[in-house]
């Protein structure tokens, strides 16, 4: 199911320990683009921009869930999967991938799932999970940037 190509090596040299919610290798790529370790303007703006984007996407997911719009949920899951993976939110990414699959009327393993009710209820559960995963990650990242 979930892609495990992200190694969760959270103990890179010089890198902050951000727990397992964030893939440090991916995240450090973004940090590397900053002008200096003191000046985190770029990475911070990327990450805060992502927060905004994620917030919007969750709202749309709620709306789509309300409207039982699996296609839209599939699309939104795919969308957030991409950006969360880019920032390094591994757990969020994995959950978004599940939503993407359910939205496509598939099971987690990719086999077809014709029962749309089941898909919707799975999405509902997963959406709850991903929101809390996201909240954790957001807090971790905000703490990181505030302390920096």
């Amino acid at each position, binding site marked *: 199911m979930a*892609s495990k190509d992200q190694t969760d090596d959270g103990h890179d040299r010089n890198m902050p320990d951000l727990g397992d919610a964030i893939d440090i290798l*991916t995240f450090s*790529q*973004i940090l*590397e*683009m900053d*002008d200096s370790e003191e000046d985190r303007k*770029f990475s911070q703006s*990327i990450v805060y*921009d*992502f927060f905004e*984007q994620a917030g919007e996407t969750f709202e*749309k997911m709620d709306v789509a869930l309300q409207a039982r719009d699996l*296609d*839209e949920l*599939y*699309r939104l899951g*795919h*969308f957030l*999967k*991409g*950006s969360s*993976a*880019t*920032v390094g939110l591994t757990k969020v*990414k994995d959950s978004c*991938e599940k939503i993407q*699959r359910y939205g*496509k009327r*598939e099971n987690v*393993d*990719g*086999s*077809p799932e014709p029962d749309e009710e089941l898909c919707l209820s799975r999405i509902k559960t997963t959406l709850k999970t991903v929101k809390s995963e996201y909240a954790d990650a957001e807090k971790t990242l905000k703490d990181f940037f505030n302390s920096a």
Partner: protein
Amino acid sequence: MPEGDMAGVAQGAGNNSSDFVSNGVFCSSIRDIFVALGCMCIWLTCCAPGTRMLEDPAYSEVVRWGDQGDSFVVLENEKFTKTILPKHFKHSNFASFVRQLNKYDFHKVRHNEENGQSPYGASAWEFKHPEFRADRKDNLDNIRRKAPAPRKAQNAEEQFSVQNQQVVVLSETLAATQQQVQQLQESYYEIINANKIFVDEILHLQKVVKAQHQVHNELITHLTFNPGQNLLSDGTEAPLELRRARDILNGLSIEHVADRDLNRMSIAFHQAGGSPESVGSSSMMGPPGAAGVTPFLHDPLSDMRHLVYPVGQNIGIDPFAPEHMNNIPYNRPGGENGLPPTSDFNTTPSMAANTPPGLQSPSPWGSKKPVVLLVEDDRTCARIGSKFLSQQDCGVEVARDGLEAVNKVSARQQPYDLIFMDIVMPQLDGVSATAMIKDMQPNTPIIAMTSNINQQDLEMYFQWGMRDVLAKPFTKEGMIGKLRRHLNSLLRNPPAEGMMDPSAYPNGGSAQPPTPGPYSNQGMGMAPLPGSSSGPVTKFDTTPIQSPATSSSWHSPSQLPHPSPTIGQEHGGYLGAGSGAQMVLTPGGTQKPQFAGGMMPQMAGSQRMPLDGPPEKRQRLYGPPGNYNQ
């Protein structure tokens, strides 16, 4: 009695001593004179005691008047240096004493006759001065240090004129070098022109060959399967000749390996030269806008990028003025960056324009910086991707969906050097956008950027003309690797062929590279063409099979998040103004995009819509289970 002592010493020491040497009164008067004169010059401090020494009995074995009274003789060099010099001279080594003597115009007396033997012994040093005589104390005044000043002044003058000459010579050399550089540049551009013509010609010929290939195929197909022509009434078995002809055609590998290099060269030429379309953009490609040769717009001498030195004038800069030395606005040879340190010279706006400030590393590119289009609906990915690219000194433009990408490409005069294309996007997906862009800019490499990288997806990407795939989430290394790989020809130091990044293909190499072969055979319902390949070449053989089954395909209305107003609103925030017109993939078989609002007329008018392709391909995107994003 001093006089008697003196005389006795002089006589004892000397051989046939002259009377004036032994004249004590004379000797004492020398002393008096020296006392009276005082230390009028260095010579006096040096040699005035010397005259006294010459008569000092304690030193008679060491130094004394010469036999003729017109010289003095150092008999024992070593003793003289050790005992006398330290007492009377500040120069307490013999050599500097001799140098001082020389400066006062004393000269060593050489005894060339008599086998070079000095009458005072082999190790004796005899010094003479025309005015230095034992009997002419009054002449001592005339013994002066030779004035060094005028001679030195003369030196300086000489040096000055020498420097002037050097400057002149250097300037001449510089001018000559500049002229040479100019000549080299001119011949370089001649060669480039010639090369460009060759490449265009080759590409043109290739297209003609491809067109003929297609014609042949169509003919054979027609002959084989069209019973109405009465050539083959049963239609089941093609005659031997036709089969042979088809075999021969199929056996031809149309897309040669070198083609990509040719294309790349062609792109490079057009970008460098500003000639928008190649000679051969005729039958197959049918590009929008001008076909045919555009006059070569490029003026090498007005293009500052290529100038090593400015020629003919110094563009307002005095090369010898030191304050200009660090402000020379042209590339200095060997400069790491090849970019001017400052851009406050009006003469070089074009150079400063392409240069993002604050580059950490020297630019990897040669004279031409690539411009990359990044098509990505996710602004986080887009921003990170653009940052990666701009850090590599690329120009970056971002399109928020496939439609915007197509618009950007069609609006642009010169093709992009490279396009990174997301696949799943609102408005227009990346694969469709790629097919459309391929029609306009067949040479621009397009790299799919997606997490959907199973075998079928990859095949479809390549089928629709994508050159490569960058797996998402991408890394900086991954993205830069693709960049360098596909813009190889623009690199300052292009790598050798075959040293390409083996990780270019995702899934650990299980995916097929975009080389000729496998894709065109996949799922073809009829006469496969084993020899042909992906890309534009195969467009003619991807005869659509329009079965009702395709209604369940990727973009069918049941699954497609219909290009609804919802999507438009959702992304309205960063869509361009032109995106108000919706591009819709119609349901059912044909899958031709409908152009609302008459956008891109040149495309709408085209007979060959690239989306007429095999629907099976598209259907497979989310087809077989279990291979989702391994």
